């Protein structure tokens, strides 16, 4: 006679089609060309990266586009010491404010000892090879330190 059941596996699965919308589609297609394109709000002048086609504060369309450099400042970070599929531990994820952007976005930080990562650290995007690029955020593999002096606290204090 077989053993009584004490453990059960309950898979949960969801397949879906994701449509990012017009603004994000344009953003993702520029990434495919190696460009990070933000959008500026005509009213409050804040620059969104990634852009969503509208300013969530002012509720108006953000038509003006501008190319950002791909350099930025670490505003908040987290060292994860438990591995996750595709990522060996420890790894560092950080909210990075790209130069010229007024919101932060989350990226990995690599080519750097996790103990070295700090607020204000200057970092730059590392891209996948041009031939392998697709219209998605995965074109930016991670950010790495630029070696520049740390940013002045006042330039990122509102984003910590």
């Amino acid at each position, binding site marked *: 006679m077989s053993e009584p*059941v*004490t453990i059960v596996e*309950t*898979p949960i*699965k969801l*397949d*879906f089609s994701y449509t990012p919308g017009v603004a994000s*589609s344009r953003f993702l297609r520029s990434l495919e060309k190696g460009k990070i394109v933000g959008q500026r709000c005509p009213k409050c002048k804040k620059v969104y990266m990634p852009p969503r086609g509208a300013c969530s504060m002012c509720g108006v369309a953000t038509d003006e586009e501008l190319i950002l450099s791909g350099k930025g400042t670490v505003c908040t970070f987290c060292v994860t010491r438990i591995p996750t599929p595709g990522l060996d531990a420890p790894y560092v994820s950080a909210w990075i404010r790209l130069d010229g952007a007024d919101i932060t976005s989350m990226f990995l930080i690599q080519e750097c000892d996790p103990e070295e990562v700090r607020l204000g650290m200057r970092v730059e995007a590392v891209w996948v090879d041009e031939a392998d690029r697709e219209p*998605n955020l995965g074109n930016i593999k991670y950010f790495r330190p630029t070696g520049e002096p740390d940013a002045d606290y006042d330039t990122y204090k509102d984003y910590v």
Partner: protein
Amino acid sequence: MTESVLVAEHGIEYTYTRSTGPVIGAFLTALRDRQIVGVRGSDGRVIVPPTEYDPVTSEDLSEIVPVADEGVVTTWAWNDSPRMGQPLDRPFAWALVQLDGADTGLLAAVDAGEPGAMRTGVRVKARWADGRVGSIRDLACFEVVA
């Protein structure tokens, strides 16, 4: 100016591993053996599927009671467009089935073919899956008793 919008296919999957506890464990163990069991509540009613706690007094329940794998539909709804992961890939009925010997309804799929075959009070019988492993999926669905 028209600009095409991107579409990407995504999938999210996460498998939980749960310990069943003694009551649900007994239920799943029985399913593996093509049997359905319930639990007796403080008021004497047989609850199927079994609950770990009494619905009236909240006390622990432990008296496992076998019931039949055949019973009657007490209420039902027709599912015309089954989705991924549902018990059947063709239209079927979701039904509460009160098994002979049970005092509550078990929510299950009835492979009735078409909604005209379904009615409250219709008798249905369990169809068992091949290769049972001790899962609710061992009870593949119910079928209408001719």
